[in-house]
């Protein structure tokens, strides 16, 4: 059985492009041009992943993401233009899984969908406890972080931060989510904590901290642990 993708996009050209390129990859593609249509489709025929465009004629999608999060673990990928930063972050904080900035290539879209599908259900059961990419190996259960076979010593806060990123490896995690999960809900405004800890961690984990390979910055949004 093929995986079902719901594309919510009001622009006909982009909708058609996504539909055809996703169909070619073997997805079963449904399309909606508005939030209300998307809601109806969610009820009748729940998809496996939702690709949601910002700036739809009947709203910004935050409500839809909240509704989806209440009932399903369906991954949501937000598609936004550059200037929609604030809305995009609001959706990510509301529970969207990842985002794409227009213009994007089909390759990027497919990669995002693959990552989110791999994580499907992990928000309920913490399934991901290990992460391996190139020379970096993280085993959360055994509390081990290695680079090239050599154990790295992380402070407890650094480890918590890394663990949070490992559990969402490949997906963006917003500043607010990281601060709330690692430091606590009352620290969500303290982005400078993150900057300092990320710099420390990069110094330990990265071969060249100035051009990171693993701990990637999503400028103005959050961080992403590279998994490809």
């Amino acid at each position, binding site marked *: 059985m093929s995986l079902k993708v719901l594309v919510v996009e009001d622009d006909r050209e982009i909708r058609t492009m996504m539909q055809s390129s996703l169909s070619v990859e073997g997805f079963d593609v449904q399309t909606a041009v508005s939030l209300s249509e998307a809601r109806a489709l969610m009820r009748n025929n729940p998809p496996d992943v939702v690709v949601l465009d910002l700036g739809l004629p009947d709203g910004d999608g935050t409500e839809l993401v909240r509704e989806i999060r209440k009932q399903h673990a369906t991954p949501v990928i937000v598609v936004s233009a550059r200037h929609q930063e604030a809305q995009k972050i609001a959706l990510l904080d509301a529970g969207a899984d990842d985002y794409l900035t227009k213009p994007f290539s089909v390759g990027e879209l497919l990669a995002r969908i693959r990552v989110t599908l791999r994580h499907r259900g992990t928000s309920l059961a913490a399934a991901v406890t290990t992460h391996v990419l190139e020379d970096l190996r993280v085993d959360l259960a055994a509390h081990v972080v290695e680079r090239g076979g050599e154990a790295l010593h992380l402070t407890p806060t650094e480890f918590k931060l890394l663990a949070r990123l490992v559990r969402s490896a490949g997906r963006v995690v917003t500043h607010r989510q990281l601060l709330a999960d690692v430091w606590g809900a009352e620290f969500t405004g303290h982005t400078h904590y993150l900057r300092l800890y990320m710099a420390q961690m990069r110094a330990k984990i990265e071969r060249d*901290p100035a051009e990171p390979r693993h701990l990637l910055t999503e400028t103005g949004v959050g961080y992403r642990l590279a998994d490809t």
Partner: protein
Amino acid sequence: MAALLLLAATLCSAMLDAYVSLTSQAMIYVLAVVIAAYKLDWVPSAVSAVAAVTALNFFFVPPRWTFEVESQEHFIALAVMLVVALVISHLAASLRRESRHAAASEQRARQLQALASSLADASTPADIVSLGQQALDSAFSGPNTVVLTAGIGESPDATADGLRCCMAESAVLGPGTGRWPGLNAWYLPLGSRGQAVGAACVQPAHAADVDSREHAQTLCGLLDQALQRVNLAATVQTAETEARRQQLQSTFLAAVSHDLRTPLAAMVGAASALQTQSDKLGPADQLRLLDSIVSEASYLSTLTENTLQLVRLTSPQQELRRDWESLEEIIGTVLGRVRQRDLTRRIKSRVPAGLPLIRVDPVMLAQLISNLLDNALQYSDGEIDLTVALTSRPVAGQNAQALVISVKDRGPGIADEERELIFEPYRRGDQSGPRESRGAGLGLALCRAIAAAHGGSLTVSRRTGVGAVSA
């Protein structure tokens, strides 16, 4: 006061009674009358003159303790003294009136001078109105009002009515003006006929007090001049802004007609070739056409992004989304992106560890650095150095720290006379050069706008080093 003086004179004369003649006692009374005349108004001083003569008569002129006068000589002396006392008190009163008048005029002249000099510094109508209010309040006990036309509104109260009316008539209303003499205040328009920009209301107003009314009129005249100056300056500035905007728009249109059409033409050409000739084109040709569509489209996307950001930054309501950011991180992401166009790794970055966090808009700063790097990649061949240095420089007496981001390439350099021109929007260095270069010249204009929005600057120097300073 007059009574005290007379009492003192009487006591004094009584004490000296045994030693001096009546003439000296009369002189003491005259002295009392002169002092009273100098200190008091005309009526009380005249009364005290009469009282002094009466007292002298009663206490000292024989027969004493009566109002009768014994000899004719004493009668004449008393009559002369009465006349002298009255004349003195009249003279003293008018002298006092004049010196008071002179002091008041001097104070008013000084106030006018002070108002004129403070109005010279005022730059908005609101400043001028508040200065005017202060000036009127210090000259008149009030309550006084100064308002601009817009501030009067439609309110139905008597003051607003008077203000509206004096503006409509462009004339002073109130006591002594011949217009609405029954009012208890003067209403003065700011501005001449048909161009009243505001009005003032001054209290208390008396018909006879011509000086005060003229002073109020002069103050209002100063306010009117200042308002006209400010309005004129604003008009000129609006006209200039409008002219600049139109010029920008026309250069933008000119740039669009070239820089947007060219990639669009290339894309349409390549796409239509694939559409109609795909059976005749070999796989290598098809790939080349597809590559060209993708690269032209991404160029258009960058151009659009730069244009939008520049428009957003130059609009006055723009607010930066600042946060505490790590420059190392921002440069890391920019390099991650730019490396896709830098396959031979020409960019050498040297970012020292442990830089302080800076409060910036990360998206904007990333765009600044990536525009500079793209520029360097496009216009030069050799290595490109990206360096960051923390420097101290004195700012307003304090040592402020600044981050200097510099991008140095080994390109052909920029002629001295082009140094500033390259930052103008829609301009490109190397206009006539043989190099196949593109770009609407928006990149550097945007970079400079971003640097300026962060309180920094962007300059170019020899060896095509481009430095951005962000405080």
